[in-house]
């Protein structure tokens, strides 16, 4: 394995051990198709050795970005630097990056061995047999070396595509929705396997996906993309716990966003008024330049208590009436109407304590720790990014049906 780690680059001769060596750096990238700006002045630095995910709904420009790094698309503006060298003008076959295509794009007329050996042969490498055998071992496909791609299952083909790219020891491995065609169980396995291979080899992976769960499971760092721009970038926990835009708040998991007004500050917290009740937000979690804000909290942070329970000063509290509840095994989802808000609030209560579910019509208090509260720009669309997330994420709440009925009742809100 050690030999694989010593990545050597053919296309680029560079001084060794520069700071930022192996970093992939995108500066002001723009790509237009006709009048459509698909990638809009994108700035992004992907540090060497990371598994970096570009996450966004289809059409957000993430695949175009990846293809520009691979050299398969040419940017209209901006530069791409790899290890400090400008590769913007370098043609695809000279770039020290390799791609795992969404369709795998395995050569149907070549055996698995020859598919994997393709890049090595093109660069006239030595010890092709040993290198190919070793990488096939890594992806557990030695036995399939002499078969043709059509004789392999989808998951096996996926691993061949991975091996075919990895065997070249690229400075950056590009993965374009690599698990999209696999079923749920296999996808989980592959997520784990890819993550492990990345750890072992220490290569930089740029992973493009629309699956927020996949991105959070695998990536060291995620950039959430929307409309050709990066909405927010950070570690999965950071994005999830402290979203800066409504899009991120809704696209990763789900969020309660309630209209509110900033009323003042009290030490480290900003005091807001939401539906006539006071809600405190930590200062560093307020991302709005305006008085009007959306105050947000994730459904699973909330605990639902019957009205009249003694309040806790370390918690925010909003009272409402249970509209609906559904038991989903690991917990209960509550939909709670709040006086003064068109949107009901969602709360997810873990199945940890005995006792009956709260019946619809019960007056309740929704309570959560102040540090879980965040505030977003009040001019945003509070529904941005909703419904574009995929997969019924276990542990996350999805009350789309309720929202639909609520919206149908009250009409679209802006």
């Amino acid at each position, binding site marked *: 394995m050690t030999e694989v780690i010593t990545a050597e680059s053919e296309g680029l001769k560079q001084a060794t051990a520069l700071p930022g060596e192996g970093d992939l750096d995108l500066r002001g990238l723009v790509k237009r198709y006709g009048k459509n700006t698909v990638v809009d002045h994108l700035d992004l630095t992907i540090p060497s050795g990371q598994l970096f995910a570009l996450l966004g709904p289809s059409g957000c420009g993430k695949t175009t970005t990846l293809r520009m790094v691979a050299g398969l698309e040419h940017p209209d503006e901006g530069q791409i630097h790899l290890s400090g060298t400008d590769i913007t003008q370098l043609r695809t*076959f000279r770039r020290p990056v390799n791609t795992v295509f969404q369709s795998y794009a395995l050569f149907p007329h070549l055996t698995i061995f020859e598919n994997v050996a393709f890049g090595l042969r093109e660069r006239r490498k030595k010890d092709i047999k040993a290198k190919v055998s070793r990488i096939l071992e890594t992806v557990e496909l030695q036995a399939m070396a002499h078969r043709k791609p059509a004789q392999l299952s989808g998951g096996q083909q996926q691993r061949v595509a991975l091996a075919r790219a990895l065997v070249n020891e690229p400075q950056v491995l590009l993965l374009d929705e690599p698990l999209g065609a696999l079923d749920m169980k296999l996808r989980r396995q592959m997520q784990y396997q890819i993550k492990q291979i990345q750890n072992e080899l220490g290569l930089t992976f740029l992973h493009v996906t629309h699956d927020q769960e996949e991105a959070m499971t695998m990536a060291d760092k995620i950039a959430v993309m929307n409309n050709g721009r990066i909405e927010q970038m950070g570690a999965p926990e950071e994005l999830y716990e402290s979203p800066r835009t409504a899009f991120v708040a809704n696209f990763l998991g789900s969020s309660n966003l309630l209209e509110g007004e900033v009323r003042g500050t009290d030490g480290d917290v900003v005091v807001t008024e939401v539906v006539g009740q006071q809600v405190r937000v930590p200062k560093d979690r307020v991302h709005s330049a305006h008085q009007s804000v959306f105050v947000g909290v994730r459904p699973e942070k909330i605990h639902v208590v019957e009205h009249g329970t003694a309040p806790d000063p370390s918690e925010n509290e909003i009272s409402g009436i249970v509209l609906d509840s559904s038991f989903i095994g690991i917990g209960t989802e509550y939909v709670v109407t709040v006086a003064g808000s068109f949107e009901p609030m969602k709360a997810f209560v873990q199945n940890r304590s005995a006792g009956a579910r709260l019946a619809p019509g019960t007056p309740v208090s929704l309570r959560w720790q102040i540090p879980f509260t965040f505030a977003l720009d009040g001019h945003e669309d509070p529904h941005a990014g909703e419904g574009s997330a995929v997969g019924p994420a276990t542990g996350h709440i999805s009350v789309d049906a309720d929202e639909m009925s609520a919206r149908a009742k009250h009409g679209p809100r802006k």
Partner: protein
Amino acid sequence: MTRETAQRPVSQLNYSPKRERISGFFGRHIIRVIGALATVYLLLPIAVIIVMSLNKPAGRYNFTFNEFTLDNWTNMCGPYGLCSSVTLSLQIALAAAVAATVIGVLAAYSLSRFRFRGHGSANILVLLPMTMPEVVLGASLLTLYVNVGIPLGPLAILLAHIMFCISFVIIVVKARLAMLDANLTEAAADLYATPWRAFKRVTLPLAAPGILAGAVLAFALSFDDFIITNFNSGNAMTFPMYVWGAAKRGVPPQVNVIATVIFLIVMVLAVTMSIVATVRENRSR
């Protein structure tokens, strides 16, 4: 729904024992009968050619079966000019097939892989020679040759054949290329293959069946062509022209022998290819 059906009297159901017997018979045999008839219809002319190649004609015309003989086969080149016309046709067909295939493959590749100005019109223009009536094409070619000063004869024939064969090669190869995943060339480029290497190692082998089909088609079209050739041959005589000329005096049975030989060669090639394909599939399984 089901209850209603059950309550309906049996006589009203869409069922009678007699009808079932007939439809059963047809269901089992009608397709075979039609298939057999169609096959006979297709192969009968060839059968006649083969049979008549073994005939000893009573007079000048080889129209009725008179007497069995192998003379025509042992004395293939008997009639004056027959074998030299076959040789010329084979030479022209081979050269035309090779040239048309090379040009046609390149054209098909660029038409299917690149978008350039005039792409749409080029797509249509390359097919034009195919849609033109051959008589018109032949006549206008004659005018062209005379004006440009190209002597009529084998070269003029070859140039004409290459021209009309290209369209067919383009159609066949383009259809094959359209079936290939466009990502494959990108994958090759991503794996350090220059555009030429990608073409050679990925596109070409995958398009090979289409290219071969195009080449065979071009060969057959050229070998077979009479109308255009007739305008531009000068003194040269191709096999179709020999047959045309001989028809006026009575076609010698050796023509049937030549036709039978060609048929047998094609059959052997087809059978070999299908055997090779089967073997290859079994081996890779």
